[in-house]
């Protein structure tokens, strides 16, 4: 491939708060190829989990990603509960639903704000984050912390929400409803945003299926998938809510879906607060038997998938995490190529990439000896040898 010019973005750059590295190959102002390099925030959480007890792991997986910190522990806990055949009390399921939906509102509004910021619409940024504040307050009331909730545990939830607090949460989300309807109207009807977002960063339905996109990224491209509907967990099958699918696959569709989902989450929370039954909140699990299971949860960005294997001891033998950004980040290959350089920022942002979820470490292993050779000095040596070889040929 002959590239006219290359732009490197990152790893530390003002576009997003996380460290990632993009290489854009350009022909004039058209993007012809894109390369994404990650691993700056890889922390080895899967390995770390093997040294923690089953009850400690939720605190670690909560810190996989701060924005999905309600979804990751829930997915892990559902896997462990499947191994132990636990019947979770009804009230705990409703409490999990409330916290997860509050987290979805906070994540989607955060994205809307950042998207507005990338487009140079700082008013949208300030509005979205201002209307997000009551949700953060509601989360603090529900769990005691603004972003790390630590409310799920194996067999139920760690902390009950009193009736008084449930009323406060109801009041807070009801209060934001009007503001978010106004924001949704302002975004969906704005002619400048139409011009800027419609037909930009299109991910076709075929590409979405080929890359296995999930969450709002998939739903924006006409994939009707949502774990909450397809394999109901918590109390989602007892509540009335809708899934939104758009066919166009552009950034506008993804933005619209997220805003509509915020309103739908408010609907879910209001129902859950109204319908919540009384009773126990914890099934008091004592032993985790040997076995393996998967748990999946619809995080704000898509399907979060956790696999846990137990050998009957106190520690998980293997814990595998697949976060939604792992599927969604490679769709850049389909949506960025052919785009204008000025549209790349919003296209990259449109999948709401979360690198701390997705980070992997690559190790170069010698095929014959099986010896690891990820040492930087060795790579430099390999490179020098190659230069030497080429020099001799010339």
């Amino acid at each position: 491939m002959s590239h006219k010019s290359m732009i490197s973005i990152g790893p530390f750059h003002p576009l997003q708060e996380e460290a990632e590295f993009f290489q854009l190959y350009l022909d004039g102002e058209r993007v012809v190829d894109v390369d994404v390099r990650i691993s700056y925030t890889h922390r080895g959480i899967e390995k770390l989990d093997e040294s923690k007890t089953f009850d400690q792991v939720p605190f670690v997986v909560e810190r996989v990603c701060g924005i999905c910190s309600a979804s990751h522990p829930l997915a892990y806990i559902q896997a462990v509960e499947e191994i132990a055949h636990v019947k979770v009390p009804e009230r705990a399921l409703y409490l999990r639903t409330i916290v997860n939906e509050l987290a979805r509102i906070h994540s989607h509004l955060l994205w809307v704000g950042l998207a507005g910021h990338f487009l140079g619409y700082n008013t949208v940024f300030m509005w979205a984050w201002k209307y997000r504040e009551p949700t953060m307050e509601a989360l603090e009331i529900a769990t005691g912390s603004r972003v790390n909730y630590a409310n799920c545990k194996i067999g139920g939830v760690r902390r009950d929400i009193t009736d008084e607090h449930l009323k406060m949460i109801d009041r807070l989300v009801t209060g934001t409803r009007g503001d978010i309807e106004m924001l949704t109207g302002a975004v969906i009807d704005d002619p400048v945003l139409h011009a800027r977002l419609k037909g930009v960063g299109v991910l076709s339905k075929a590409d979405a299926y080929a890359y296995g996109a999930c969450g709002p990224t998939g739903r924006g491209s006409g994939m009707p998938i949502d774990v909450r509907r397809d394999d109901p967990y918590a109390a989602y099958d007892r509540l009335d809510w809708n899934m939104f699918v758009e066919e166009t696959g552009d950034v506008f569709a993804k933005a619209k879906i997220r805003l509509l989902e915020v309103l739908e989450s408010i609907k879910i929370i209001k129902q859950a607060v109204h319908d919540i039954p009384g009773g126990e909140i914890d099934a008091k699990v004592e032993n985790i038997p040997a076995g393996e299971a998967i748990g999946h949860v619809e995080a704000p960005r898509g399907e979060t998938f956790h696999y846990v294997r137990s050998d009957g001891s106190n520690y998980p033998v293997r814990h595998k995490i697949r976060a939604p950004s792992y599927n969604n980040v490679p769709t850049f290959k389909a949506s960025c190529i052919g785009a204008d350089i000025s549209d790349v920022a919003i296209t990259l942002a449109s999948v709401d990439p979360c690198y701390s979820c997705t980070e992997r470490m690559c190790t170069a292993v010698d095929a014959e000896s099986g010896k690891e050779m990820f040492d930087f000095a060795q790579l430099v040596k390999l490179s020098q040898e190659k230069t030497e070889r080429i020099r001799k040929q010339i």
Partner: protein
Amino acid sequence: MALMNWALRKSLWVYHVNTGACNNCDIEVLELLTPKYDIERFGMVLVGSPRHADVLAVTGACTRQAQPRLQEAYRQTPKPCVVMAIGACANAQGIFTEAYHMGAGVDVAIKAVDPDAIIAYVPGCPPKPEAMIAAAVKAMELIKTL
């Protein structure tokens, strides 16, 4: 040098470095800019380059990949520069201490470049935005005494 310190007493400019954080601290740092906390009323802004920064707001446990990049960002800042280590991870690597992919830790990595670096620790997981504002105010007080 006295003039530099005098100029730093107000309107600190902040560059934000994520060295392997889970995003929680980062969204709380961004939260500072938004209407509820609005740190810009103190003249503080987030800037896009370490060369413009008076404060490095460092979040995350400083992974092996990020460590040399953090040191490079610190080298590029004009001195004196206050390093704000935000959150349990940036303070002492927190829950990730035993993980295999950890670098030296934010304070060790910075001290390796500049032994006299000013480091402000903001504990919490994540610290509340109010705590970060308090840390910024304390950093300004500290600069006044230089």
